[in-house]
């Protein structure tokens, strides 16, 4: 078996790469990814490159894959009832009641209440844990069965997997199939429920997880293949790379010249003029941030996977502080948001920022 973790830069053509790889396989292939949006993206790419999804390729979201192949085949070790799909939860599930010192939850022994709603829907935050339990109690039959069905497995958006998901990945890496994991640790989707298991590998530390927890398993860590961005030009790549120096600088394959390229500071007073001149997409942290209503706007968190010619970012206070001084503390979530926001643009990134003559930020120009 050949396992591979590919660290992909934003806009490096990750989906195209994945789809092309999958198209070359004659074995049964599974492509799984965390979000429905990305699942659709992959399907679209297949249609674009191949006309259709080949018969030997199955595309499933991570949860749907876990339900079908992780939970159901051997759920008998826990219970036999029909499981009616899953329910997405945004906070820790299985609450028993609100106690004096905060909520009290059902214990795992009370497995019906712990894992399921009254309508026997499985809580999304417990699926992976359940799968790990099946894997353990059947002595590895879950991963064995999956590897027999899919000799080739591609996990996209690997950075989004956390907690028990990682244990499942570990089992698959050990099973008799080739696992290719692709992801950008800089673009983590933040779960509102905080997984206690493997907490230290949260925030996209997948590489560290493979190096530490799976050191006896063969797995190639590839930072080259998908390091060049087809989307962002060099100035944008360089500036975004400053956010994650540990991953080195991203290269570019975007050389188009439009007359306005790079990263620019835009004074609040100039926003209207800037919008008028370049028509960028406005990116904000959340809806409550005031933007110019005459032009389109989108939350940074929702912009993941999308591409615009130009963007205008409304940074938060923490982000502005970081821009002035990279040693300032910034939450991983905020850092990732800023990274995603910057890397949406092909040609230019405007950042709303009050500046004067003395202001000087490396890699950033001034609009006026």
């Amino acid at each position, binding site marked *: 078996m050949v396992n591979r973790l590919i660290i992909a830069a934003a806009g490096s053509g990750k989906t195209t790469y994945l789809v092309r790889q999958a198209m070359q396989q004659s074995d049964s292939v599974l492509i799984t990814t965390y979000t429905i949006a990305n699942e659709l993206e992959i399907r679209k790419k297949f249609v674009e490159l191949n006309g259709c999804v080949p018969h030997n390729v199955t595309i499933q979201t991570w949860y749907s894959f876990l339900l079908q192949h992780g939970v*159901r*085949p*051997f759920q*008998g070790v826990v219970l036999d009832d*029909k*499981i009616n799909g899953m329910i997405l939860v945004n906070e820790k599930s299985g609450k028993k009641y609100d106690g004096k010192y905060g909520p009290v939850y059902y214990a795992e022994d009370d497995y019906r209440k712990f894992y399921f709603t009254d309508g026997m829907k499985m809580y999304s935050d417990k699926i992976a844990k359940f799968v790990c339990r099946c894997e353990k109690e*059947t002595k590895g*039959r879950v991963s064995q*069965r999956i590897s027999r*069905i899919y000799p080739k497995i591609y996990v996209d958006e690997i950075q989004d997997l956390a907690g028990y998901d990682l244990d499942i990945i570990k089992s698959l890496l050990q099973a008799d199939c080739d696992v290719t994991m692709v992801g950008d640790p800089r673009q983590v989707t933040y779960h509102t429920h905080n997984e206690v298991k493997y907490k230290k590998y949260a925030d996209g530390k997948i590489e560290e997880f493979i190096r530490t927890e799976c050191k006896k398993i063969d797995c190639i860590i590839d930072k080259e293949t998908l390091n060049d961005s087809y989307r962002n030009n060099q100035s944008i790549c360089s500036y975004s790379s400053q956010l994650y120096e540990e991953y080195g600088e991203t290269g570019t394959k975007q050389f188009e010249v439009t007359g306005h390229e790079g990263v620019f500071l835009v004074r609040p007073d100039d926003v209207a003029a800037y919008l008028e001149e370049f028509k960028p997409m406005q990116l904000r942290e959340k809806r409550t941030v005031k933007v110019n209503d005459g032009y389109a706007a989108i939350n940074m968190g929702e912009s993941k996977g999308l591409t615009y010619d130009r963007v205008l970012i409304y940074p938060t206070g923490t982000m502005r502080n970081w821009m002035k001084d990279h040693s300032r503390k910034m939450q991983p979530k905020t850092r990732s948001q800023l990274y995603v926001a910057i890397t949406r643009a092909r040609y230019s990134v405007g950042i709303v920022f009050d500046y004067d003559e003395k202001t000087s930020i490396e890699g950033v120009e001034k609009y006026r």
Partner: protein
Amino acid sequence: MYISKVKIHNFKCYRDFEITLEEGLNIVVGDNESGKSTILEAINLALTGILSGKSIWNEISQYIFNKEAVDEYIASLNTAPIALPYITIEIFFGGAENPLMNGDANSDRDNNAEGFCFRIAFNDKYVDEYESLVQQGDVKSLPIEYYDITWTTFARDVITTRSIPYKSCLIDSSEYRYQSGNDLYLSRIIKGSLEPEDITSIAQAHRKMRDTFINDPSIEAINNKINQDASLTDKKIALSVELVTKNAWENSLVTQLDEIPFHYVGKGEQCVVKTELALAKRTSQNASIILLEEPENHLSHTRLNQLIKCISEQYAEKQILISTHSSFVANKLGLGKVMLLDNLRITRFSELSEDTYNFFKKVAGYDTLRMILCKKTILCEGDSDELVIQKAYMQLNDGRLPIEDGIEVISVGVSFLRFLEIADCIQTKIAVVTDNDGDIAAINKKYENYIGANQKDYIKICVDDVVDTGTLKIGKSDYNYNTLEPKLLKVNGLDKLNRIFGTDYTDEDDLRKFMKHNKTECALKIFESSEQIEIPEYILEAIRW
């Protein structure tokens, strides 16, 4: 890939039933009404959703449920209602080629198992309606209208018969398949052996034929005539051919055999042709099981022989399940493949020695199945022994023949030990009646596995332990005083036997010679005699036991 096991719950005569199958050939032997056909039906139903030639959705009724289970349920309604009965047929696949169907959703709780479960059960959706029905006391039969039919893999995936990578082909000779012009069954088999392009060209040719028909001048003329006569409506009336669906040719074409439509060909021949077609089907695409019901029906001995030859040459590539009550079929195809179905339970014969298989394969005329299917068997050497034993039985049992009590008397020549080997497998009562031929030690040696310390409670060796001697010679050799005839003379005396045979020998030795040379005739006379015959004790022993 092959079916390794089938488990049936509440389907027809089976409350809970399990049968393991092997790759290649499997033979189920059983009496009439023993449930052989139900096994084949169940397998076919689970794999195709077809019962009695029709879709199960139209065939579902209370009568396909186990009667006992239904009765229990109905009875319980008056006291404490029990859960509604359901049918499951579980198909287990061997060969570990189907990981998608691997899971622990099987009644064995085996997480190694691969397969699926066919299920006819109450749909929980209707629980409210059902509850009110029960409360009103309106349930007098199974509320079939609330039942649902599902196929679920052992991995709990809901599937359709289309996605089962294993097909079945049921070949039987009952009437119901021949109601429509073309035998759907046959067309399915033929279709299975065609390439997709072939099927397309058939469909196209069929469409062309229809167009030609509509455009034929005579049809046009007729249509004009109809329209002139029509006065009740302004609309145009025309004679046409039904617009064809993609697979219409299947229904309107007739398969012919030597220019005779298939359904006019003899049933036996149909069976042979279908079997051959099914066997010839390419194996690469989908593995399949051929379910062959009582091939001996409608077939002459010669044709049966050809069919069996065809089967035994090709079963290596196919899984075949044959139900039969012909010993010939069973012997010829190999007793090792035979499973006995008795009291809805299965017994296998896999412990027979290679030698014994081969013996019965070669001498396939032996009625091995008679022994397998009866309550008790008395084995004897020849026809005359058989007649005398029958007579003895009638004398002891108010004139009833042994067969009327489910007891078989079979003459087996010198092959006692072969038959005893079968007896070891089935463990039904078998008595051996044998001459001692003047050498008790030799007899003891021959049957050492069945007497003394090795005595088995289902096998009894009956032999006269007195060795008689005398001086009579036949030609140059000594006369054997220890066979049936001299023993009969010993207990009945000269006068009585003379009376029965219509002879008047004065010397016992002369009568002995007469009996030796007219064994069967003497036995017949004894059998037909109205006089009470004395029977040697060792024979009585076999009958009383």
